[in-house]
């Protein structure tokens, strides 16, 4: 086994970090922050497949996250489904929706695609806010705890391991996908769509496929968030959250699975660290974003790797 490749070495490093991190988590608040990072990272790893590898932007992934969260919440709270079944059904439902929407939307290019996904996300958000009988409206709704084989999964320390395990699984899946023939087809798409088509790649099918996968990642993360926190509001469905997710991917480094994880960690942690700044928080946050993107236009991780590689030479 070659430990220097990202597939094995990187994955082992990630697993090690997740295993050792609890030593530094002094109380449940820090567990909470770690869990939030994990949830965002799962969404970002999926979104990065779409943005970083297939080169298709989406400004509507909070919509899929929200569908996952509210699907699980409604099925388990209003209709009494067992949470595991609710999660599975919701994920399948979101995959179907992504498949149906993906075909026409992914024919669009660049900024038009950005607008279409943005519109899709906003429509989902408006429906969730307006149908308050089902969703509780803007004030949100309570969600029952996750139960598996009669055991109730609650508390930060339990969910830390669930989210951590899911993240490792998500990263493993993404790394394998990228190395697979389908993944190579995707990267070819990113380079030149026409070129890829000429070489016999069904561009639309490949794009829709990765769109559906990234939507499912977001949906599962949404379902888990709902059950973990026991309460869900439309805040996480808003287009601000969509933009936040894209920002994490770009910040950490497009076309780098571990970059997506690092982006999620950095941008989840930053607001928690900036609270000491009080009214200056927004200004500093904006300034950090702008300057990072100017000085590391490829994102944190790829720029860092590049610098390291240059040093070695």
């Amino acid at each position, binding site marked *: 086994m070659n430990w220097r490749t990202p597939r094995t070495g990187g994955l082992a490093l990630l697993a090690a970090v997740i295993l050792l991190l609890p030593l530094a988590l002094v109380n449940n608040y820090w567990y909470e922050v770690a869990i939030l990072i994990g949830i965002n990272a799962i969404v970002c790893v999926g979104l990065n497949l779409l943005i970083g590898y297939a080169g298709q932007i989406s400004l509507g992934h909070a919509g899929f996250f929200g569908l996952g969260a509210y699907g699980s919440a409604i099925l388990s709270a209003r209709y009494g489904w067992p949470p595991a079944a609710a999660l599975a059904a919701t994920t399948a439902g979101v995959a179907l929706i992504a498949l149906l929407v993906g075909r026409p939307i992914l024919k669009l290019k660049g*900024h*038009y695609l950005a607008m*279409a996904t943005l*519109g899709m996300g*906003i429509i989902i958000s408006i429906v969730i806010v307006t149908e308050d009988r089902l969703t509780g409206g803007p004030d949100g709704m309570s969600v029952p705890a996750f139960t598996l084989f009669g055991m109730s999964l609650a508390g930060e320390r339990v969910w830390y391991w669930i989210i951590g395990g899911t993240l490792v699984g998500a990263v493993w899946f993404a790394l394998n996908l990228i190395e697979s023939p389908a993944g190579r087809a995707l990267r070819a798409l990113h380079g030149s769509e026409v070129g890829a088509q000429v070489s016999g790649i069904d561009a639309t099918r490949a794009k829709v496929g990765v769109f559906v996968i990234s939507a499912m990642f977001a949906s599962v993360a949404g379902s888990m968030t709902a059950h973990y926190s026991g309460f869900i509001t439309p805040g996480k469905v808003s287009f601000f959250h969509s933009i936040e997710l894209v920002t994490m991917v*770009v910040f950490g480094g497009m076309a780098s699975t571990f970059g997506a994880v690092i982006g999620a960690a950095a941008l989840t942690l930053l607001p928690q660290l900036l609270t000491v700044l009080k009214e*200056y928080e927004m200004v500093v946050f904006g*300034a950090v*974003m702008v300057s990072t993107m100017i000085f590391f236009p490829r994102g944190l991780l790829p720029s860092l790797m590049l610098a390291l590689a240059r040093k070695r030479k």
Partner: protein
Amino acid sequence: MSAQLAQYLLTGLTVGAIYALVALGFAIIYNASHVINFAQGEFVMIGGMATVSLANAGLPLLVAIPVAVLTAAAVGVALAKFAVEPARGASVVTLIIITIGASILLRGLATLVWDKKLHALQPFSGDQPIAIAGATILPQSLWVLGVTLAIVLLLGWFFGRTLTGKAMLATSHNPLAAQLCGVNVRFVLLLSFGLSASLGAIAGILIAPITLTSWDVGVMLGLKGFAAAILGGLGSGTGAVVGGLLLGIAESLGAGYVSSAYKDAIAFVIILAVLFFKPSGLFGKKSAERV
């Protein structure tokens, strides 16, 4: 019944005119740099908030407005110089994230320089409603419509008849060729940001007496302006204006005849439907991909 329709149309036109001005700002910057400037809404906010604070400080509107527009233009040029230009050559998505970061920065600055409260601006010529075809309209709406029309005509003249305008157009078609012909592409970039910031600020000032202004007013208006620009076809001036007006009217009719809770959703469904049939918007150029 027709009075009701007239009311919806007048309302839609007024709101749509503001969307159109914001959309024009998107189009101008896109043409000069292929950047989608997500901080466009913040220029709307700066225009409104600066005018209000200057007016409260005792300056007459005739002085406050030009100062506010110049302030916004200066911020726009600074944005181009210190945030967009240094990142030249970065990917489109990276540039988008930079403008999003800049918009957060500008909003944060606004809460520090001004405050987090809502503010009202005095209407330019009273607030006695005017009756038109059974509908009523505020004098300020006429200002909005009139100034928007004047700006559209002025921009048409600028891009069609002046050397600078033509240089900007040339840059949008082919920056390298334009540069070879002696166009200062750097200057065009700064100018386009300054120009579209001024447009945004004017929109913000015109609408402030009707809808109030605050530090976060730019978020929604920026979003709607982007939607209008896409609906019309990115980079097309005519498209931006038509897109803005259509969006405003669609929202107003949707609220009046279908469901007010779903009016924004209706507007976005229409945009999606248009894009499915015309993937480059109503007036957008069909893009040919170079292989």
